C-alpha cells in the first residue's frame, strides 16, 4: 500500500473535495474512489479522513447533503453549493499561483 503523506494532502483535500463535488453528487466511499482516480493514486490519505472535512465544509455552507438508504446501508450524498463553487474558484486560483511559483523556483534551482 502506498505511503500516506497527510501533511502534504491536508490543504489539498478541501480543493479536491470541492472540485469533485462541484461536478456531481457523491457519497463518501464514492468520493474516496474518485480522489484516488483523479490523483492517479499519487495522493493517498486515510479514506475516513474525508468525513471531518466534508462535515466542516457543509457547516460552512459550501456543501449540502441528503441521506438515502441503499441496500439497508445509510448513505449521505454531498454536492457543492453555489458558495462552494465560488470557494473552489478562489482555491484553484491560489493553487495555480502557488504551483507556478514553486515550479519557477525549482526551475531556477535546476539552472543554477
Amino acid at each position, binding site marked *: 500500500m502506498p505511503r500516506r503523506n497527510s501533511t502534504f494532502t*491536508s490543504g489539498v483535500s478541501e480543493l479536491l473535495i470541492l472540485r469533485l463535488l462541484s461536478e456531481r453528487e457523491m457519497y463518501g466511499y464514492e468520493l474516496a474512489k474518485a480522489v484516488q482516480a483523479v490523483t492517479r493514486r499519487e495522493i493517498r490519505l*486515510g*479514506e475516513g479522513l474525508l468525513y471531518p*472535512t466534508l462535515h466542516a465544509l457543509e457547516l460552512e455552507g459550501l456543501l449540502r447533503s441528503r441521506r438515502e438508504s441503499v441496500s439497508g*446501508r445509510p448513505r449521505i450524498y454531498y454536492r457543492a453549493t453555489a458558495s462552494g463553487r465560488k470557494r473552489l474558484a478562489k482555491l484553484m486560483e491560489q493553487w495555480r499561483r502557488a504551483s507556478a511559483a514553486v515550479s519557477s523556483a525549482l526551475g531556477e534551482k535546476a539552472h543554477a
Partner: protein
Amino acid sequence: MPENEFASLKERLLRGGIAPRQVERLLLELRTHAAALLDEEMARGQPLEVAQAVARSRLGSDDEIVRKALEQPALKSWGARWPVVVCALLPPVGLLALSVGTLSALVSVLPVGQHLSQASWERGVWLIAWLVLYGFPILCSFLLVRYTVTRRLGLPWPLIGLLLTAALGAWTTFTVAWPQTGVQGRLSAGVGFSTDWVALVRFGLRWATTLVAAFGLYVLMRRGVQAVDRTGDAMRTPG
C-alpha cells in the same frame, strides 16, 4: 465490523470537544464506509480477518481521524468553544429567564382568571412557587450536568455554573399574600440575601438540595459512560 469497533474513537472525539451530533454522524459514515471496504476486500478473495484489517487500515488510524476532526473548529460543540459562556454563565441566566418568564405568564393570566376559585388559584400559585424555588434550579442544574457529561467537558466551568445556578435558585424569594375582605392580594418575587440565621439555613438547605441532586445525576451519568467505555475496551481486548 463489530458494532463497538469505533467506541474508542467516539470517546476520543467527544473528549476532544467534537459535538455529539457530529460524532454520531462521523461514526455512521465511517461504519458504512468500512462495510463497503470490507465488501471490496472480500470480493478480492481476502479472508474475513485480513479483509477487516485492510478495511480498517484504509479508513485511517484513530489518531489520524481524531487529528483531522480536531483541525475543524466548526465541528466542536459550543461548550468546547465557549466554556465560560455556555457552562458558567448560561445556566444561571437561563434560570433567571425561566423564573421571570413563568412569573410574567402568571401575572398576565391574573385578569382573565378572576372567575376561578381561590382554592384553584392557591394550587396554581403554589405549584409555580415550588417550580421557581426548587424545580427550575434543579432542572437547569440537570441540563448543565447532562450537557457536561455528554460532551465530556472539563469540570471547572460547569462546576462554577452549577454553584452559581444553585445559589441563584436558593436566593430566589417568592411570597404570596392572598386577598382578604377589603385587602388586595399581593405576589412578589425577587433575589435577595439575608444575614438572618433562619434565612441562611433555608438558603443552605435549598442550595444543598440542588447541588446534591445535580451531583447524584452526574455520578449516575458518569457510571453509564464508564460502563460503555469498559464494554468497548472488552470488545477490543484479544482473548
